[in-house]
Structure formats: structure tokens, C-alpha cells
């Protein structure tokens, strides 16, 4: 049936090996009968093997022949659908992103779980090992799915496994509530996806993507757009796009930290894969550009997510929650690139090149975000397992106690703030260039909207820097504010190795991003049927990134991150000599100047105080609530105690979700009046509904 393809044997072996590793890892949870610790170690090692194999398989495909799709049929489980895997450049790229973070997370995991909850029952450890392996396996295979059935099964497995991990950490009510919200939102999204897929499979009469693609070719414009928006909302729910993000800042921090790293770094990218697969592949018209409503929606949603994500992150004091809000921001940045690529694709002239540039920026940011967000979550996990405190107001002074963790967290902070010479800057630079090129092609309001989006991206970068000065400074610098922080010690070596792996990725992708373009060739060229990433971005060799914004491309902009890094290092060496001074003596130490009072940790700036000016500048968005209770002695001038409470509301929660909730409550109250409690009444309702439905259906068909 399927012609034998070169490389299919290796791929088959690789895929089998990945499945075997994750399967073995999942089975190793049975070892918890004897020792929970053994199950943890073996399960994570098996997952590590799976992740390394995933890296190998994806690199093999990415560096191989671009544009080809390798298909692997799976054994028949269902009589009505033949399951298969199809690996093309895009699949392999997302498998690569997944595996990169999975390597770090699995190295980090066992020591973290031991240190964080040393008295966990074996049953919980078994559940965590099982869920982690299922989670990783499903994420790997959802990208490689060759048909709708496999896709949806793996998608659901991913959701369920991550739910187990979210509620596994502690048995307090907050985690359970976070898990419930996550389940509701994720399944709402899945329902929409299911509708989109079923509408296609009904037309195609088969489940595999090739048949869906063929069926979609005959769709009329409005059906095509409706299906795209169904899928888009379904994917956006899972990706945490504003205003569908409310579950994300609750669920991600609740999971164990290495799982948070996987959820934020990788799981949020799977919907991006889905959007690209639907938008550019399955639902794309046979010829001509995509409907402009698609691109504009994605672009605007991305811009709003980016700005609101970082603004809410700024006001968070829970380290992991802050990072989760930054994921909302970064998904927004990725979507800006995706939306722009959708707008520019097949528009002719320089549009082809610019679409590749925009998609390259989006995909590179996907990889970069996986690296630095994974690193930051692992860093937060190290802090958490040593202090058992997530509120940064109770930390401080950790840089002296946990120097490796502090250094690696700072690296991640610089990267996520889009500062040179690290990787965050590279992908944002490419996004800026794509936006600028897009703006020069769209005259009129469209161009202005694109430039405005670029300005918002700049605002996002600046605010992210402010947020990470706060997060890093308050957590790691100054004096410890509580005894939890004071008695912290450095994290175990394996946790540092896990972080260092991702730190290395951040530096490598920042200093030599040209080499990563080789990995992006297959996904960009395969998806857009246009010149690949390296033809557009690294035309002048791998050390120079260059883009041309006009059709002729004569006045291209070139930057070299490698040169820049070399210059920075050389100048830092010179400055170091200058810094030593002519005396060359060791510095004296003295207490910090606090206007003559004895310095205590109360003098350190708190996160609330740090973010206050921005809270006031953006008060219209935050609607801050603030309450100060003063207890005074006999006169109002002598304060005995002062109590401050402040709160920020999430606008989408108050403006959308609370209203929906009120509407539902009102509706159910109305229905309750009609409910008589007699079974005949309900049967009458059901029959009536059925009758009306049949009537409507009959009228439409008739």
C-alpha cells in the first residue's frame, strides 16, 4: 500500500525505541511495590533514554532530505480507523523541542522529587512516574501523528497525564481546584478540536491526514474558515492564549517543578504545532493566500497575550506563577510570528521570503522559549525544594547560598528578557524584522496595526526585563528575609546538570543561532513550499544573520551574534583589568548604608514595592485593590501595627468568566423553577427536544 521510503526503517526503529523507553518507564512504576525511590530512578532513566532517542530521531529527520514525509503504519486497534504515524520536518522539529526539555527534566526529576517530598508514599511516586512517562510519550507522538485518531488519542493522553501530575504534588485543596479548572478548560478545547476533526473526517471518509487534506481541498471559503476557527479556539485554550489562559497560571505552578518545565516549555507548544498543521497544511487552500481573517486573528490574539501576560506576571509574587504568566507572554510572541506568516504566505514577491522569515522567527522562539522557560522553572524548583517557599517576598539572599542555581537562573532571566547575546534576543530580532517587512507590504491600517504590534512587542521585552530584575533580585539577592531562605543550601548535582543542559542550549542558540537554521530548513520549507530558513536568514554563512525587507533585498540588515559575543567577551576582559584598579587589593567589606540604622532584611526592597510604580502606571488594566489597616495607640501618631493587603484582578476573569458564571447560575436557577421532580416531566422534556431536533434535521435535509 505504502511505497517503501528511504529512511523508513531507521525511523520505524527509532519510533519503536521511543515508545519502548516510555513504555518501560511507565511499567517501572510497578517497582514502587518494593521501593518508591527505585521506581522514581528507573522511571526517569527510562524517560531519559526515550528523550535522547527522540533527539536522535528528530535530528535524523531534520538534517535529512527536507520536504519528505515518512509514514509508519501502526497495528490496527480500531476497525474503523487505521492508525499511523507521519513524520515530516514540522513533526520532527516539535519532537526535537520536546526531547530537548525532556532530557533536562528527566535528569532533574528524581533528585527533585526526593528533595521536595522525601516522605511521599510509594503509591504517589508510582503515579508520578507513570504519568510522566505517559505525558512524554503522548507529547512525542501527538506531533508525529499521521491521522486524526492518533492525534486525538495522544492529545487526550497528554491532558490526562498532565492532570495527574498537577494534582499529584500535594493533597491540598488548591491543587485539586487548579486541576479541575485545567480539566474543564482543556476538555472544552478538545471538544472544539473534535468537532473540527470530525467535520473533516466525515467528508473524507477516512482518518489519515492525507485524506483530510484531500477532503479539505473541496471546501468552500466559509466552511474552511469556520473549521479553522474551531480548531484555533481549541488549540488556543490549550496554549493559554488570553482570554483562555485562566487555567494556566493555576495549573502550571501546582505540578512538580520539572513537570512545570515540561508543561510550560513543551506542552504549550503542541497546540502551536496543531495550529500550523491545520492552518498551513490540512485546511490551506490549494492555491492562493490564506483567508486574511486567519492571520489577523492570530496576530491580534498574540499581541494581546504578549502584553497582558507580561503585565500580569509583573504583579505576581509566587515565583512559579510568575513564570507561568510569562508563558502566556511567550506564546503570544510565537503567535505574532505565526499570524504574520499566515498573512504573508503566498502573497507573491518578497511575501514568500517574509513568510519564511516570520515562521522561522516563530519556530525559533518556540525552541528558545522551551530552553529558557525550562531552565527558569527548574531553577524555581531548586529554590522551592530547598526552601519550601514559593512566595518570593519570603526569600532573598539565595545567591550566596545557591550560587549555581542563581547563576543559571540569571542566565535564563537574561534570555527571556530578550537581551543580547542570548537566544531570546535572536528570535525577537527575527520577529521584529518580519514585522517590519510585513508593515512595508501592507499599506494602510493593516501596516499600522503590524507596526503597533511591533511596538507592543518592544514594550513586552522591556516589561519582561523589569519583571526578571524583580524576580531574580528579590529571590536571590540582598539578605534572606526568613529562616527558610537563610538555611537554604545548594541543590543536588543532578539538578544542576539538568539546568546546565538547558543553560547551554540558551547560550548556544544565542551565540551561534545560524547553525540552528539548519534544523529549521525542513519545517519551514516543507510547510510553506518556499525557500527554507537558512536560504532566507543565513545567506551569508552561518555566523551572520541577514534579512532583506524589500523584494530586491539589496539593503539587507545583517547582524552577527557570534561577533557580538566575541566583542563583549573581549571588552569584558579589558574592563575586568580596569575594574581591578591600580591597587589590586581585595575589597573591604562594610555594612550597606541604611541612613545610620542597623541594616536588617526589612530594608531590602520587596517585590510589591518594586512593582508598585508599574502598578500605578497601568492601574487602568490592573484595577488594584488595596487595603491598609492601621492599629494605633492612644494617639493616631503612634502606630502599633499596620496591615497591608493588595490584590490585582485578572481582567479576563472579572469581565468574561465571572459574567459567564453568573449567566449560567441565572439560567440554572430559571431551569430549577421548571424542574418539578417528577420523572414524567423530564421524559417529556427529552422527547420534546428529540422531536424538535428531528424536525430541524428533516427540514434541512428535505
Amino acid at each position: 500500500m505504502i511505497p517503501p521510503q528511504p529512511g523508513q526503517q531507521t525511523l520505524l526503529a527509532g519510533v519503536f525505541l521511543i515508545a519502548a523507553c516510555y513504555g518501560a518507564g511507565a511499567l517501572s512504576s510497578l517497582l514502587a511495590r518494593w521501593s518508591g525511590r527505585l521506581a522514581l530512578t528507573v522511571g526517569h532513566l527510562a524517560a531519559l533514554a526515550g528523550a535522547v532517542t527522540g533527539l536522535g530521531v528528530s535530528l535524523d529527520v531534520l538534517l535529512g532530505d527536507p520536504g519528505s514525509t515518512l509514514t509508519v503504519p501502526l497495528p490496527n486497534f480500531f476497525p474503523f480507523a487505521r492508525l499511523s504515524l507521519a513524520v515530516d520536518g514540522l513533526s520532527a522539529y516539535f519532537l526535537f523541542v520536546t526531547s530537548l526539555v525532556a532530557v533536562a527534566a528527566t535528569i532533574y526529576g528524581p533528585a527533585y522529587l526526593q528533595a521536595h517530598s522525601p516522605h511521599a508514599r510509594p503509591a504517589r511516586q508510582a503515579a508520578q512516574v507513570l504519568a510522566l512517562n505517559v505525558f512524554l510519550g503522548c507529547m512525542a507522538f501527538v506531533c508525529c501523528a499521521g491521522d486524526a485518531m492518533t492525534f486525538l488519542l495522544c492529545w487526550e493522553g497528554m491532558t490526562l497525564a498532565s492532570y495527574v501530575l498537577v494534582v499529584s504534588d500535594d493533597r491540598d485543596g488548591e491543587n485539586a481546584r487548579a486541576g479541575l479548572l485545567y480539566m474543564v478548560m482543556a476538555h472544552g478545547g478538545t471538544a472544539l478540536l473534535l468537532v473540527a476533526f470530525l467535520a473533516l473526517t466525515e467528508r473524507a471518509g477516512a482518518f489519515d491526514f492525507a485524506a483530510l487534506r484531500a477532503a479539505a481541498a473541496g471546501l468552500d471559503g466559509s466552511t474552511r474558515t469556520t473549521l479553522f476557527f474551531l480548531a484555533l479556539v481549541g488549540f488556543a485554550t490549550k496554549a493559554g492564549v488570553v482570554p483562555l489562559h485562566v487555567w494556566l497560571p493555576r495549573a502550571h505552578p501546582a505540578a512538580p517543578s520539572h513537570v512545570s518545565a515540561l508543561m510550560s516549555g513543551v506542552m504549550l507548544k503542541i497546540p502551536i504545532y496543531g495550529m500550523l498543521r491545520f492552518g498551513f497544511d490540512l485546511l490551506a487552500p490549494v492555491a492562493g493566500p490564506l483567508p486574511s481573517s486567519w492571520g489577523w486573528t492570530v496576530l491580534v490574539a498574540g499581541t494581546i497575550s504578549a502584553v497582558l501576560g507580561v503585565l500580569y506576571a509583573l504583579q505576581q509574587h509566587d515565583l512559579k506563577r510568575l513564570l507561568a504568566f510569562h508563558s502566556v507572554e511567550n506564546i503570544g510572541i510565537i503567535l505574532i510570528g505565526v499570524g504574520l506568516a499566515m498573512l504573508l504566505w503566498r502573497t507573491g514577491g518578497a511575501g514568500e521570503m517574509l513568510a519564511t522569515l516570520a515562521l522561522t522567527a516563530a519556530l525559533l522562539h518556540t525552541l528558545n522559549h522551551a530552553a529558557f522557560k525550562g531552565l527558569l522553572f527548574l531553577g524555581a524548583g531548586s529554590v522551592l525544594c530547598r526552601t519550601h517557599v514559593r512566595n518570593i517576598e519570603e526569600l532573598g539572599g539565595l545567591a550566596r547560598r545557591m550560587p549555581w542555581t542563581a547563576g543559571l537562573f540569571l542566565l535564563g532571566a537574561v534570555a527571556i528578557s530578550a537581551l543580547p547575546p542570548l537566544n531570546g534576543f535572536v528570535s525577537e530580532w527575527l520577529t521584529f524584522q518580519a514585522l517590519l517587512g510585513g508593515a512595508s507590504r501592507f499599506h494602510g491600517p493593516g501596516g499600522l496595526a503590524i507596526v503597533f504590534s511591533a511596538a507592543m512587542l518592544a514594550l513586552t521585552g522591556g516589561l519582561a526585563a523589569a519583571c526578571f530584575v524583580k524576580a531574580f533580585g528579590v529571590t536571590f539577592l540582598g539578605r534572606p528575609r526568613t529562616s527558610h531562605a537563610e538555611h537554604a543550601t545548594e541543590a543536588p548535582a543532578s539538578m544542576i546538570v539538568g539546568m546546565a543542559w538547558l543553560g547551554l542550549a540558551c547560550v548556544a542558540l544565542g551565540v551561534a543561532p545560524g547553525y540552528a537554521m539548519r534544523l529549521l530548513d525542513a519545517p519551514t520549507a516543507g510547510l510553506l513550499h518556499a525557500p527554507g530558513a537558512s536560504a532566507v536568514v543565513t545567506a551569508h554563512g552561518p555566523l551572520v544573520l541577514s534579512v532583506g525587507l524589500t523584494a530586491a533585498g539589496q539593503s539587507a540588515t545583517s547582524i552577527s551574534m557570534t561577533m557580538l559575543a566575541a566583542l563583549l567577551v573581549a571588552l569584558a576582559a579589558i574592563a575586568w583589568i580596569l575594574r581591578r584598579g591600580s591597587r589590586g587589593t581585595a575589597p573591604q567589606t562594610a555594612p550597606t548604608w541604611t541612613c545610620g540604622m542597623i541594616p536588617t532584611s526589612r530594608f531590602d526592597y520587596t517585590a510589591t514595592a518594586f512593582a508598585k510604580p508599574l502598578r500605578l502606571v497601568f492601574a487602568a488594566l490592573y484595577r488594584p485593590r488595596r487595603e491598609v489597616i492601621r492599629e494605633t495607640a492612644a494617639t493616631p501618631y503612634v502606630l502599633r501595627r499596620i496591615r497591608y493587603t493588595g490584590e490585582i484582578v485578572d481582567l479576563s476573569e472579572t469581565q468574561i468568566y465571572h459574567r459567564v458564571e453568573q449567566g449560567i447560575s441565572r439560567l440554572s436557577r430559571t431551569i430549577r423553577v421548571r424542574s418539578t421532580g417528577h420523572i414524567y416531566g423530564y421524559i417529556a422534556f427529552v422527547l420534546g427536544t428529540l422531536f424538535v431536533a428531528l424536525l430541524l434535521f428533516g427540514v434541512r435535509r428535505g
Partner: protein
Amino acid sequence: MSGERSFALVLLEMTLLVLFGPLVTGTIQKLKARLQSRQGAGFLQPYRDLAKLFRKSTVQADTASGLFRAIPVLVLAATVTAGALVPVVRAGTPSVPIGDALMLLGLLALARFLTAVGALDAGGAFGGMGASREMTIAPLVEPVLMMVVFSTALVAGTTELGALAAHRGTSWIFAWHAADFLGVTAMLVLLPAETGRIPVDNPDTHLELTMLHEGMLLEHSGPGLGCMLLASHTRQIVTLGFVSALFFPIAVNDAGADGSLVGAGAGGFVLGLAAFAVKILVLAIYLALVESSYAKLRLFRVPQYLAIGFVCALTALALRIL
């Protein structure tokens, strides 16, 4: 790869910016003093201050981490690297590409990020206050600077500063559009904010009511403080050079358009340098005038002030695109 500016020239220009950075500060201080009917310190006072600081020994806060000592080094390196991206004596793309206008803004942001991190390290309220305020103003300034860059880059089709300067042409002010005038206005509004001057910040004091940048330097001492001050002098001249490359590439461009002029000999080099000095002087006079004629704004008035720049930049962009 072809380019009009050799790598040696780029390095030379960078060195010149570092060397003359303190002189610009000295000039502004002297001008301010004269405008306020004071005698003032000499033009060379910043050099004397630096020399003094580099001879001193260091006193460091006992709560500071190991990172604290590296901060001045990294800040200075990032700022000076930004200097390598500014065309000084001639326009055109560098033969060895390093970075563009976005990279320059990124490097300055990196220096600011590290300065703010260092300010929190000592664990005093002053450093935290300075860092908090600086990181409040910076995200509001950066998008507007970016928009000004975009408003010129949209026409030139590049964000490389040398190429932007070359594109603007020799007859600079006669070829200006309305968008350019608005862009310059936005830039002039932002300039005091980006160089840390009245009405946004006050470089002469680190009292808690005014301090932004100076508050962050409070715990640095000796050569470390010297590095930080040298970095802020360099940052100032880099920002001024950035503005002049975007809008007034006069003489630079004469040299760039006709490669032989500068490529050949010292004449063009001196001409370019003199033109650059004049441009920087004009901007320095502007800064001194603004500083002498306005009062420091309340911190929460600053966003409104910056909004003027934002509106100008947005209008400039709208004029370019619509």
C-alpha cells in the same frame, strides 16, 4: 561580504566614543553651570573623577554576592559594545556585521538590566528604589525608541544604523518628510529620559526624591564605580550618536556616499570627526538648555511626558504607512 566601513574603523570609532564620552558630560555640566550663572567645574572634571576613582580601593557591602563585583565589568562591556554599532565618521554598512539599531537598544537594555540587578544586590532600600524606578521608565521609553527606528527603517528597508545614515542622503534636512520632523520631536522628548537627565532623572544627585540611575550606583565604589560612571558617559554619547545617525548624518554621509573621500586619507576622517563633534555639541547644548529650564517631574508624571513622544512616534509611523 562587502561593506564600506572596515572592522578597524569600527573599533576606532568605538574607542573614540569611549574616550570622548566623559568630555560630553563635562561640556553639559559646564554649559549648565554657565546658564545658571555659576562658574562650574572644568570641561575635564569627569576625567579627573574617573582617574581618582580608578586609583581608589573598593568597599563592598557585606551582603553582596559574588555577582556584585562582575556587574560593573559587564555593564561597561555591554555599553561599549553598543558603541561599536554607531557610525561616527562615515556612513555605510560595516564590512564585518555586528549589529543593528535593535541590537544597540538591546545592548543598552542589557546594561540597564545588569545595573538594576546590581542595585538590588547590596540589599539597601536606595538601590531597590532606583532599580524599581529605572525599570518602570525603561519599558515605556524602549517601544517609542523602537518606533522612531521603524519610522526611518520602513523607508530605508534596513535597521542597520550605518546603512540608515547612508540612505538618508546628503541633503538631509531638505529631504525631510513630516514624518521625520515628528520622529525628531519624539527623539528630543525621549533624549533626557534615555540619558538620565531632567525632567526625568537628575544626574547631579542621588536624593531619594529624584534618584533613578544614581540611586543604583550608591553601593559601588572605587574602580567599580569608575566603570559604572564610564559606562554612563559612554551610554550618553552612544545615545546622542544614535540620534545623529538616524536624523542628521551630515558630513558622515558626504564621506560615505563618495567612498574615496574617507577611504583615501585623513582629510575625510577629520571632516567626519569634526562634523560628529558639532552634532554632539548641538545635542549637548539642547540637553543643557532643557535641564536648566525645566524642573524634575514627579515620577508618576513621567509616563505622561513620555506619552508625548509616543504620540509623535506613532503619528510619524502612520504618516509613513498610510
